[in-house]
């Protein structure tokens, strides 16, 4: 989209005909912009309205949830009743704790192992680099479903079945490829010249890395870590396969879904959605680092 200012100098001496064209173009631009706003708003509503619906159900009374026709929040009583009901249901608090433990172990392991690899693929040109990147992509694209069954069988044999640690090991395998690529693209966005300059001014390579590069990449790495957390928090298939007693939150909700009441389901749905609302906001600047990378 071009700005009208660019052409102002060129059109100072313009004839009436040209000015007419210009006016028409400006009008067309205004119409286009209004249209774009309208379309954007429509799509935004398409995304927000369902979230608003479920949010209304999560923070009202159980009576309002069962009522028909259903209302939305300003028109139905606000209450923490359904959410409290959900959180005090059996298995939910342990589920949340398990989910958080799994997600944190996954985040730490995945970031610790992925960061050096991400640095390597962005800073070094070495034989096998493309093969490595390609295999990372292949792992990323691999169906989770396919990995869960074999891992469950292997874990069962090794006697580390049904533990949050084995689930975290699997989640790490699932998230690491993405984390490597994202961290790689974050490093790639910091010019190597900065590191060189620091070394010219007398830093050792390690010092240059710690004092120049690290502060610049930390936000990006944090974004990658947050995304890792969200992926682990959301993952339900492997969690239901690999855990029986120590269920994570999504696995617990999934397994009690058909014998639970609507207030429980709706509050649970909204509760699982909250991290997405917060974390996507925190990492929105890095989204394109995250996914743009795979197309390059």
């Amino acid at each position, binding site marked *: 989209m*071009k700005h009208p200012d660019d052409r102002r100098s060129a059109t100072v001496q313009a004839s009436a005909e040209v000015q007419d064209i210009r006016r028409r173009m400006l009008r067309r631009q205004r119409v286009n*912009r209004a249209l*774009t706003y309208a*379309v*954007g708003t429509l*799509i*935004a509503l398409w*995304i*927000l309205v*369902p979230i608003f*619906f479920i949010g209304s159900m999560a923070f009202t009374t159980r009576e309002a949830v069962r009522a028909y*026709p*259903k*209302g939305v929040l300003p028109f139905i009583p606000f209450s923490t009743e359904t959410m409290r009901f959900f959180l005090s249901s059996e298995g939910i608090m342990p589920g949340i704790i398990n989910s958080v433990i799994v997600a944190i172990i996954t985040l730490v392991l995945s970031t610790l*192992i992925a960061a050096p690899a991400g640095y*390597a693929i962005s800073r*070094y040109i*070495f034989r*096998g*680099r493309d093969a*490595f990147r390609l295999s990372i992509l292949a792992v990323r*694209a*691999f*169906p989770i*479903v*396919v990995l*869960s*069954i*074999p*891992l469950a*069988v*292997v874990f069962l044999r090794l006697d580390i079945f049904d533990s949050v640690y084995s689930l975290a090991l699997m989640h*790490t395998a699932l998230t*690491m*490829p993405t984390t490597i690529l994202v961290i790689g693209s974050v490093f790639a966005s910091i010019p190597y010249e900065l590191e060189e300059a620091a070394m010219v001014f007398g830093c050792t390579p390690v010092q240059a890395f710690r004092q120049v590069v690290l502060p610049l990449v930390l936000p990006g790495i944090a974004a990658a870590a947050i995304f890792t957390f969200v992926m682990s928090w*959301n993952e*339900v*298939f492997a969690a*239901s*396969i690999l855990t029986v007693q120590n269920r994570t939150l*999504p696995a617990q*909700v*999934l397994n009690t879904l058909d014998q639970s009441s*609507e207030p429980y*389901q*709706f509050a649970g*749905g*909204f509760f*699982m*959605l909250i991290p*997405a*609302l917060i974390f*996507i906001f925190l990492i*929105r600047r890095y*989204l*394109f680092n995250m*996914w*743009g990378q*795979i*197309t390059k």
Partner: protein
Amino acid sequence: MKKRNWTPYLLILPSLIYLALFFAWPMTRGLVLAIWDEEASLSLHEQAQQNSPQTGRLPQGTQIGILDQQGNFIQPEELEEGNLLTEVWFLVSGEDIDGQAVTGWASESRIRVREEAADGTPVVGSVRTKLGSDADPLTDIYAESNETSDVVGKLEALTRVEIQDLVTLEVWYLIRGEEEGQTIEGWAQSRYIQVFSDETTGRIDRGNTGELTTKYIEKMVNDRFFAPALRTTLLLMVIIIPVQFVLAIIMALVIQARLKGNSIFLYIFAIPLGVADLAVGIVWYSIFTHFGFLNSILQGLGLIDAPLTYLSADTRYWIIVAVCLAEIWRATSIVMVIVVSGLQAISQEVLEAAEVFGATLWQRIRHVILPLLRPSLQVALILRTILALQVFAVVIALGGGTVVTVLANETYRQYGDFRNPNVAAAYAGLILLLSMVSAVIYLRTIRTQEEAAE
């Protein structure tokens, strides 16, 4: 001479090791489950010993006759295996009928333990009286802990013996069975054999020798949920993916227009990226359920008098519609992000040139944007297809998982509900195969188009 720099290899080493350990290895191990029957047949031995030559194999489930039995050594860690029949032998010493001191082995069934040490080990016992009038009243003592070894002495009933040692043995059976008209006879461990109550017949409970099999794949294909699951999965893909791509390109163009408030749009458009699929399923359940929001809105507008039922066994198509909407809601964001990154790589000059030359929006999309976006769209298409093959929690949340079922759901049920990891692995293998085939097809078609264009 150029020195090779090992630093990058050291840096990627941990991730490689991790992925090999927790990805490549279990993956190969697991997919083998689908085509390898670990307990297909039982190898029989000439003697009741692991290292004796094999006489043949009998498949699992064969009816057998039991001819003889004998104990043999067993490793202590093997004692935990199921269905073991064991016997204990004692090394005893006592006076034989001639008054000579003898030391030898006797089965536990022949010795009654009289005294035990503090930790429960037997120390002193006596020879049991043999029942039955025609039996030899003396008890044989053997050189080794089985009945085929030399007899070193005979003890009278009730002789006091010192128990010096004991050993636990697994019973081996001499069995005979028929396989394809041939009679095969040989020894096998009790853990593999189920003995019927007459104690002379039985069947092979499980084998110890694996072989390639198609029975799990056949079981999967013949399952009554297989065809509906495959059909629904493909149907969902065909409906969802085109809609998603159109919507994602529109979203990307809105973002690319760089309006005021762009970052708010971007945030809202990206929210579904982080939402759990189960949560999305529940969100759309709240809309489509009997007393849900859709009916509430329709009734509020006066379009219906009583709530309609959408998510029931009689209205399968409504469940599919709901699943499609939920998946489009959830997974369009990822396509949008990939398309936006692709758009950002297209130089603004090209787009402006097209606009200056009077191309309409549609012409610009058709002839400029789409061709330049092809690599991004290709990646997005592969990613979306693979993810669409795995759709799971949304379907369960909206349809309960039986009326409308998909491949991932069947994998889950085979593993979780029916305790059948082999068939589950077959399903997983099918999903993997479909993913790989579709990825190859996308890569091929797009490459041939490019080659044709050159």
